[in-house]
């Protein structure tokens, strides 16, 4: 049975399939495993960060710091691997604990000082970007045999597509994210918090713990995305991934999660990422369209999906309570 809450997710999946079919009918070579594999590899870091963003947005918050945290992670890894003899795995563990702590600190400030997530994570965005600058303003290359080893891990599919480790990490992150959202106590608490902090508190949801964990998760996943991004580019650059937080938010919204919080799907975000990647791939295949059309098309898509959600919520609430809801923002 199809519930109305699942409709945005279905529409997102359908949009992706129709768009992919249309692209494929125009450029048959887009249907190869090569393109699919690249779609996963190129958007791996964005996908990972979008999983964290989905949790944050379902809880009714927002995390503007993720783009800066990715850049910080990249620069941190590059500088540590250049200046010390630390093994990359140890550096990964170190940077992940740093980013988790960073996210947790933001969550604690949001909860205990009662400040809007928007402003706190905005300050976090400045701080993380600033720390990346302090470490290095140049692009630092990463040359380590372990990196070469990780980059050489791929499965060559028939047709020439290379499914790399980073793509697999993204898929695993989505899988774990889906299980966490729908099958754990933490996930239920996140949904409850998004439905209304006051109600959640009365239901016995530990608000402080949940808020801190949500932002710690988002920070940690941004750190993981930073590791994946450094594998992707083999360098750390403090000016990299500017504005990724916006792409992640857009993917989450296109994936059918309400920015008001309370409803949403991690799986929807996955298709949101694929749709955005598809637009870029199409523009590359077309060759005559300029890159700025990406932004305009994504903006248009955002608008269309927001209207769809609005129509759905209106249709479902108007039937049930015709008078009382007329002015809810």
């Amino acid at each position, binding site marked *: 049975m199809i519930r109305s809450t699942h409709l945005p997710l279905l529409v997102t999946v359908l949009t992706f399939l129709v768009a992919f079919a249309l692209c494929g009918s125009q450029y048959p070579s887009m249907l190869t495993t090569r393109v699919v594999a690249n779609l996963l590899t190129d958007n791996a870091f964005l996908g990972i960060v979008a999983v964290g963003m989905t949790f944050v947005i379902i809880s009714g918050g*927002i995390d*503007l710091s993720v783009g800066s945290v990715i850049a910080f992670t990249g620069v941190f890894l590059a500088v540590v691997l250049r200046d010390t003899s630390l093994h990359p795995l140890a550096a990964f563990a170190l940077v992940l604990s740093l980013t988790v702590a960073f996210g947790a600190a933001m969550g604690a*400030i949001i909860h*205990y*000082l*009662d*400040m*809007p997530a*928007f*402003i*706190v994570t*905005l*300050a*976090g*965005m*400045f*701080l993380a*970007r*600033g*720390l990346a*600058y*302090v470490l290095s*303003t140049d692009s630092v290359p990463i040359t380590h045999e372990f990196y070469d080893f990780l980059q050489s891990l791929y499965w060559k599919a028939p047709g020439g597509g290379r499914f790399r480790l980073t793509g697999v990490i993204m898929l695993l992150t989505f899988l774990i994210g889906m299980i966490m959202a729908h099958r754990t106590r933490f996930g239920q608490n996140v949904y409850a918090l998004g439905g209304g902090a006051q109600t959640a508190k009365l239901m016995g949801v530990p608000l402080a713990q949940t808020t801190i964990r949500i932002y710690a998760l988002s920070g940690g996943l941004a750190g993981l995305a930073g590791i994946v991004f450094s594998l992707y580019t083999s360098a750390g650059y403090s000016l990299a991934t500017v504005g990724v937080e*916006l792409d992640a*938010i*857009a993917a989450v*919204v296109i994936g059918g999660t309400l*920015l*008001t919080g309370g409803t949403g799907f991690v799986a929807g975000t996955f298709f949101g990422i694929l749709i955005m990647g598809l637009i870029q791939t199409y523009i590359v295949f077309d060759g005559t369209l*300029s890159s*700025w*059309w*990406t*932004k*305009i098309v*994504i*903006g*248009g898509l*955002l*608008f269309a999906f*927001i*209207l769809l959600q*609005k129509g759905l919520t209106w249709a479902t609430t108007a039937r049930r309570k015709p008078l009382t809801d*007329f*002015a*809810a*923002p």
Partner: protein
Amino acid sequence: MVHGFQATLRRIAPQLIILAVVLLLNFLVFPDFFKIEFQNDRLFGNLVDVFNRGAPTALLCIGMTLVIATKGIDLSVGAVMAIAGATAADLVVSGYGWGTALIGAISVGLMCGLWNGVLVAFLRIQPIVATLVLMVAGRGIAQLITEGTILTFLNEGLIHLGAGTVLGIPTPILIWIGLGAIVTLGVRRTALGMLVEAIGINEASSRVAGINSRVLLVSVYLVSGFCAAIAGVIVAADIKGADANNAGLWLELDAILAVVIGGNSLLGGRFSITASLIGALIIQSVNSVILLSGLPPEFNLVIKALIIIAILVIQSPTVKHALYILRASAESEALEPARAAQLTPPKETAQ
């Protein structure tokens, strides 16, 4: 009148104190900070620079204050700046005068404001999402106008708006102070400001009370678009070119920050444009102190972030509440116990 002035002064006192502290820091790292000279028919000095460089943020936060007072937010202002700058540059390059270019840019800004306003007021989309659409698509539209290049121009009239002076004072300063004064008087000498606050506090009841909230909501987004357009023209005129990628980049965040430092709640309600403008000056003074201190530029963002976090923590409801209790208990020790019992403070709900 005198009473109203005193109330305003009390409202903006924290911001004035913070501004004074940051300006004092400027003076400590650079003793000539307050020196203002008159050379080549214009005022020169670091203090003048703070006012001049702060113009785009100050202009944006005039509109942003009104939008935030209605419990909204306008993320698109940076992108609108890029579109307006591109429009003005395009018109001037095509041979039109600077007046036409300015009117063109303002009309485009108003159109963007109308778009946001209609989404928020009539389609009832959450403001942060509604304005996100234009924030994402806006830079693409600006690049469409400039065709991906940085459109440079040499029109004296247009350049004057960003880099010229009137009676020795840089034009941007006059524009933001003038516009700020007009909007402040417009909302405070009439009932408009109170109606805007009513929407922010509770839209449903404001409508029941007979306020046409839809028209007012569209109007505040129009004002925001208008301010963003002027800011965009000033930024383009300042560099004699329209850069669709970088004009106004992240300025929406600075503007929102200025409004928050100005002590306005992101949850809507009571607002003070004057306090927001001082907030914009605080941000610019922070930038200035970092530059003048001669620290390596790599540290700029970290220091800015730390100063902002400090300001925000001081202003957060929890800390304010704790200070209130501290002060009340200190006072109550001197009073009789019966009186002290009445002094138990109510918890503040908004900043």
